[in-house]
């Protein structure tokens, strides 16, 4: 790379910093004060860019005043949406366990996506270039778009304004105080509700503005929400949660790395050519993984006490009460006789339900008794699926053997990632699992020669004797049923008790000589094996595998299932998986806007049952019946 190329890439990186910083700063502020990890923050960005598009169209593409006015108005509009969201939804769930808040904001993501689809359609929308800034600036023989130069300035200006706001006003002082100890701020007479609403509005405004400012640089599209939230999470974690200068620094580092990866192009390493641009998808997650391992609280953040696990007041898990065991046998009996009467469609749906019940139950083992929340559980599901598919097609193993090895592939991935993951706790741990899942996803997505890249793998069919849907159904029932039984045994074995003891009071566990990390590591690996098996079965039931199988939405599906059912009990995730899979299937057949319906259902469920469905039922059953549920 020549010197001038380096300078230009550096400036490109700086231009990218601004939008990323705006989104991340808002996310960080909101998290700092309300402790809510707002999944919908990327959606605010997306709405910002769409609103800017429409407003510019409305004001006319040629006018500079119209352009900048549209951008500001788009930000303000999103701020207003933020206020509504806070008042209508979040305000009701501040007391709920943190994972339920996450779930609710994820429901919001789905709703906002479909509202955007309804208003703006599925096509990408290209905005105009900024009036009066269509030219370029000559720098050492290369050109930098004028608009990028403006963006380079905007980021630091907003950083400065935010800094003034936070350090020079009473509001800012209260925000900083609440970031450290909001309960104390309340006890001093400050109305937190009002503080939260205003912080949420500001955060949403910043995200909307960040989106709107990108309209001349990228088309508005419906995938922005998830990509942006991924980037913003990374920036917030790398910079340190709640730290605004940290967000800027992290946005700067990550934008620079991305810019240089693109700029460098293809490099020769030991004779093999490697496209650095492919590295952009993983780069930020690699940075995050390194930061989390070396300095978990981020570059400029400070260590914070984090709630360690999801359940509110966790109760003792009791072994199945008699009525419950009987109910379980009844369900099993029905499932066994069902194929005699059911059509193929039902059997296929039930296979999906079994697979996801296992997937969710494995996540539950990790989140409930293990006390480790995973945002990246799809990685092990996907490893199992790809492992089975590749062993079948590339290694030429018989299908039965490939399927039997899928848990090992999942376990191997979990063994490696788990070694890092168990060194952290709380939200940081969850973020690291997300990072590993994204790295896995990006590798699969880009390794065309081996994994089929974005096309995935086709022709992953089961062996001859399993081609009948009924036989495959029974195999799945057997494998998933046995796995669930095993998971239950693990939870009630001394190993499970040790895990829970460690989760509830790590210090005490440590003082009586329990090596908690080691136990968590083993648990993580076991969980990876179960998720891998679920993935393997899933691959053979569909006949194909695509990278979506291990992308963020699959991980979130798992979380939704577990939380929907309730994290305290094993029955919870199983019920949650059944309800979720059935709902998704049912709603998707009825309407194009199934996401919105799903999102509204999730939000409704969270508002109605903050302890999950099973938790809700349990609280209303006599203890004798509810035991072990």
């Amino acid at each position, binding site marked *: 790379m020549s010197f001038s190329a380096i300078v230009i890439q550096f400036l490109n990186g700086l231009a990218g910093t601004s939008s990323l910083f705006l989104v991340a700063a808002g996310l960080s502020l909101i998290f700092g004060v309300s402790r809510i990890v707002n999944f919908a923050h990327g959606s605010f960005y997306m709405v910002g860019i769409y609103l800017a598009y429409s407003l510019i169209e409305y004001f006319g593409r040629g006018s500079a005043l119209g352009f900048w006015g549209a951008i500001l108005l788009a930000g303000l509009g999103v701020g207003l949406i933020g206020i509504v969201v806070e008042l209508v939804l979040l305000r009701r769930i501040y007391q709920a366990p943190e994972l339920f808040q996450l779930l609710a904001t994820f429901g919001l993501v789905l709703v906002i996506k479909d509202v955007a689809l309804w208003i703006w359609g599925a096509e990408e929308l290209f905005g105009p270039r900024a009036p009066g800034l269509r030219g370029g600036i000559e720098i050492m023989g290369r050109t930098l778009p004028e608009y990028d130069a403006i963006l380079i300035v905007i980021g630091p200006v907003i950083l400065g304004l935010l800094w003034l706001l936070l350090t020079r006003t*009473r509001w800012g*002082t*209260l925000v*900083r*105080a609440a970031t*450290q100890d909001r309960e104390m701020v*309340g*006890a*001093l*007479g400050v109305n937190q509700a009002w503080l939260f609403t205003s912080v949420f509005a500001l955060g949403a405004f910043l995200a909307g503005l960040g989106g709107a400012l990108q309209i001349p640089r990228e088309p508005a599209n419906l995938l922005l929400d998830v990509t942006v939230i991924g980037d913003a999470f990374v920036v917030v974690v790398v910079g340190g949660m709640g730290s605004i200068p940290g967000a800027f620094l992290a946005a700067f580092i990550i934008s620079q790395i991305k810019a240089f990866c693109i700029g460098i192009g293809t490099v020769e390493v030991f004779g093999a050519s490697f496209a650095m641009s492919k590295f952009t998808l993983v780069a930020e997650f690699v940075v995050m993984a390194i930061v989390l391992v070396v300095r978990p609280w981020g570059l400029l953040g400070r260590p914070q006490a984090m709630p360690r696990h999801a359940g509110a007041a966790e109760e003792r898990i009791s072994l199945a009460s008699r009525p419950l065991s009987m109910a379980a046998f009844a369900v099993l009996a029905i499932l066994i006789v069902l194929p005699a009467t059911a059509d193929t469609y039902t059997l296929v749906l039930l296979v999906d339900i079994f697979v996801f019940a296992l997937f969710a139950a494995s996540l539950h083992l990790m989140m409930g008794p293990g006390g480790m929340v995973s945002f990246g559980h799809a990685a092990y599901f996907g490893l199992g699926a790809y492992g089975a598919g590749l062993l079948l097609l590339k290694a030429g193993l018989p299908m039965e053997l490939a399927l039997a090895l899928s848990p090992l592939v999942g376990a191997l991935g979990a063994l490696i990632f788990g070694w890092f993951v168990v060194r952290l706790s709380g939200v940081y741990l969850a973020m690291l699992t997300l990072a590993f899942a994204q790295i896995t996803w990006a590798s699969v997505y880009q390794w065309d020669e081996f994994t089929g890249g974005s096309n995935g793998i086709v022709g992953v069919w089961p062996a001859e004797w399993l081609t009948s849907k009924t036989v495959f159904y029974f195999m799945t029932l057997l494998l998933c049923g046995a796995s669930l039984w095993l998971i239950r045994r693990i939870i009630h074995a001394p190993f499970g008790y040790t895990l829970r003891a460690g989760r509830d009071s790590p210090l005490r566990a440590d003082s009586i000589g329990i090596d908690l990390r080691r136990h968590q590591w083993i648990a993580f690996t076991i969980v990876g094996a179960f998720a891998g098996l679920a993935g393997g079965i899933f691959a053979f039931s569909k006949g194909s595998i695509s990278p979506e199988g291990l992308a963020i939405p699959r991980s979130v599906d798992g979380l939704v299932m577990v939380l929907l059912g309730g994290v305290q009990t094993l029955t919870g995730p199983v019920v949650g998986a059944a309800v979720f899979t059935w709902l998704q299937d049912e709603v998707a057949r009825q309407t194009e806007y199934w996401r919105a319906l799903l999102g509204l259902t999730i939000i409704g469920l969270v508002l109605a049952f903050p302890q999950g469905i099973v938790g809700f039922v349990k609280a209303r059953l006599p203890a004798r019946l509810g035991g072990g549920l």
Partner: protein
Amino acid sequence: MLRVAGLHAYYGQAHILSDVSLEGNAGEVVVLLGRNGAGKSTTLKSIIGLVRPAQGEITFEGRRIDGLSAHRIARLGLGYVPEERRIFTDLTVMENLEVGRQPSRAGAPAWSPDRLFRLFPNLGEMRNRPGGRMSGGEQQMLTIARTLMGNPRCILLDEPSEGLAPVIVEQMAATIRELKQEGLSVVLSEQNLHFAASVADRATIIEKGRIRYTGSMAELQANDAIRAQYLTV
């Protein structure tokens, strides 16, 4: 002024307070005495609304306050100084005071930073120092000053003498007497009987979440049996 009657409180399943009653009259210093873990902090937290009592009645100046959120209770003129101090470590002394600032109210002494710095001269010399870089004694002064910025009529002080050097404890006692002079009512929790005796008018003893004794401080000083039973370690 402040009246607590028949209070019950739980942490999860654990029954922490049972039938706690307590009274603080206007202009008086009353102390809640008890050993570590007796339930003193839980009582004060229930009063200020940080712990939601399961049962019982709390009235402040004739008004029911149980069930109100903490900020509403604080705005009625009831200040709370937590045992753990809970200084905002990133914020300077001035900023900590700013968080506590509330409009002045009738019938309560009005405080400004300057006036507080006369009461706590140390703080005046470190106005721009972050709370995290102060000594324990200085933090204890700051947490009281911060609460006073809300111009309360009554303050709850949770073990203000805990972990302080003897000289500072003396200062603390003087400060509390001065606040009483200003017309402030004080509810204090303490393990240190000597300190309590130097400031309090009346005493209530709590043990294992139950009230064991209520009477004047002078009576308690004279009653060796009670003191031996509930207070000495």
